């Protein structure tokens, strides 16, 4: 119509929006930089290293193509460790969830020692892994350990058990210690959610004729569903790559019975000085973890939608 109207470019972004976009890029730039340095670079480096045969102390070696991956696929080490990792993760995670949810429900009740118990429960989580492992190693000790002593006095066993030196005791041992160390996280997350469930819902359910068990399944559990999904996924990722607890407690032994993938990678890189092979294992491990990650991302997306 008029000259003024035609002067305005039709489909261009308004200048203000463009300015905001520039500002946005500027603001996230530091994060991207740090992210690239500590995550993207090591990731690419690992992939790069995994096609070489490298002697760790000198970091020298030659290109070997897919050899390391062929070893991963055809050798026993990776698959054994994957199996160990899955047993450890599923076992310790299940215990963490069951004990964590149970204790959270208990601590949500009006019991007189509630505030004391709430702080005590956090203790294992705050304890340094080294200290925790030392204490547990002492408890597990087959000669003077308190655990054997107690079990024998109760008449459950009549000979001291070799807890960390034989199978399946070693696996049971690490699973128990892992559960003990990490269940407080579950307690805190579940307890926080429990406290946000409106009391009215329970009252309505009582009037509607629901008993305590029905109230748990019809009111509590559905409200915990989303937080439990996130907890399980997060803990699964963290347990899957857990290193220090297992390394300090059994070192992966007896032989390789508790050698998870993290321990395998470490052993390969610094025990056998095969950095290239270790890099290949870690890439393999990362691919497995990618499954968890996709699930986690999908879950969080679902919640935002």
């Amino acid at each position, binding site marked *: 119509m008029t000259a003024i109207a035609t002067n305005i470019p039709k489909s261009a972004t308004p200048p203000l929006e463009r300015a905001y976009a520039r500002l946005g890029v500027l603001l996230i730039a530091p994060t991207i930089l740090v992210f690239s340095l500590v995550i993207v670079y090591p990731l690419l480096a690992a992939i790069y290293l995994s096609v070489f045969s490298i002697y760790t102390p000198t970091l020298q070696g030659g290109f070997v193509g897919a050899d390391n991956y062929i070893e991963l696929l055809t050798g026993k080490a990776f698959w054994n460790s994957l199996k160990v990792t899955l047993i450890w993760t599923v076992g310790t995670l299940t215990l963490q969830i069951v004990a964590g949810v149970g204790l959270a429900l208990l601590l949500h009740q009006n019991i007189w020692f509630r505030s004391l118990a709430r702080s005590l429960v956090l203790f294992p989580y705050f304890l340094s892994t080294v200290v925790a492992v030392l204490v547990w190693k002492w408890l597990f000790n087959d000669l003077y350990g308190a655990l054997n002593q107690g079990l024998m006095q109760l008449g459950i066993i009549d000979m001291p058990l070799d807890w960390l030196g034989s199978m399946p005791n070693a696996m049971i041992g690490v699973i128990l210690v892992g559960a003990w160390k990490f269940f407080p996280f579950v307690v805190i997350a579940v307890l926080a959610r429990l406290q946000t469930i*409106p009391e*009215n*819902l329970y*009252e*309505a*359910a*009582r*009037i*509607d*004729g*629901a*008993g305590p068990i*029905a109230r748990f399944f*019809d*009111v509590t559990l*559905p*409200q915990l*569903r989303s937080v439990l999904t996130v907890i399980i996924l997060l803990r699964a990722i963290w347990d899957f790559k857990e290193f220090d607890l297992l390394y300090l407690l059994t070192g992966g032994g007896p032989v390789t019975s508790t050698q998870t993938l993290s321990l395998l990678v470490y052993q390969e890189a610094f025990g056998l000085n095969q950095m290239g092979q270790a890099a290949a294992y870690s890439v393999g491990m990362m691919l497995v973890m990618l499954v968890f990650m996709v699930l986690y991302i999908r879950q969080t997306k679902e919640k935002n939608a």
Partner: protein
Amino acid sequence: MANVTFRNVHKAFGTYVALENLDLDIRDGEFVALLGPSGCGKSTTLRMLAGLDFPTRGEILIGDRVVNDLAPGKRDIAMVFQSYALYPHMTVGENIGYPLKKRGIKGRAREEAVQKAAALLQLEPLLDRKPKQLSGGQQQRVALGRALVREPQVFLLDEPLSNLDAKLRSYMRAELIELHRRLGKTMVYVTHDQLEAMTMASRIAVMHAGLVQQFDTPDAIYNRPANRFVAGFIGTPPMNQIEGAVDGGDFVVAGHRIPIDRTAFVDSLRDGPAVLGVRPEAITIATGEGLPATVRLAENTGHETIVTLELPDHSRIAARVEAARRLDVGHNVALRFDPAAIHLFEATENGARLNRDETPASVIPMRSK
């Protein structure tokens, strides 16, 4: 039979006394409102009837049965919460059907009952939605549906309309009246909104400071308030209370005499300090003869004007006049009170009413705090 009886019920939270000497006799099929300011113990009363709180002392009966030790689910009651308390993960249909499910009613029988309740409340198109996807009014109807699906003996409603906007509230008010008429069930309705209580209830229990001040019909509550609290709580604006003294055939305020008819009051009425109560609509604003006053404020709401007047003793009262009436602020006027509409109260903080009435109101003096 589902009459509800509170017999000398006391409720204390620790050392704080929330309710004392609660005596209520609610008849079968009656719509009773518990009305009072915030914190007066309305919800506590209702929750004790529901079995969610327990009386410190006294008995609660539903029908002829003492329910003090009966679980909420066994009392044959249903409750609508102020926050609706719908189960967020269940659909509307599942929410409504839940009380039936917990009572072992299965399959077609349950489905039909849910359908019936949904039809009554026009919820059919929403049955598959989750509560989050509903408006406030729709959620409120679902909560009602869950309450009436099982046809309990007594309905308990705790401020069910307070989260709705004014228009929806007046609509739901009419719906609830209609629903009560159709179901004929006993309903106990908690509100702090006197309009709701006056329009819906067959009787109102006006509560204050843990005590029932008066339990009577809306008409009696309005026209024969038991004491100064009820007089000052009911009505917008409420009844004016003018402090003065009785002297023979007159009520004297700041040296001015207002003639009263002593035969209209109880024999125990003595000369001396008293409080004269008069509703804003019983005041005529004129010139010449009458109680002198100054116009301080005139608020025109469209269909009436509320005039704030200052008396010679500097206290202020309100009068209601037609909207067209022009009154200039600062003008001196003379007030005349309709002699038949004059109430007298004892001069104490919550003085009892001293009029001689056909039906003596159930009067309980206010607790001194």
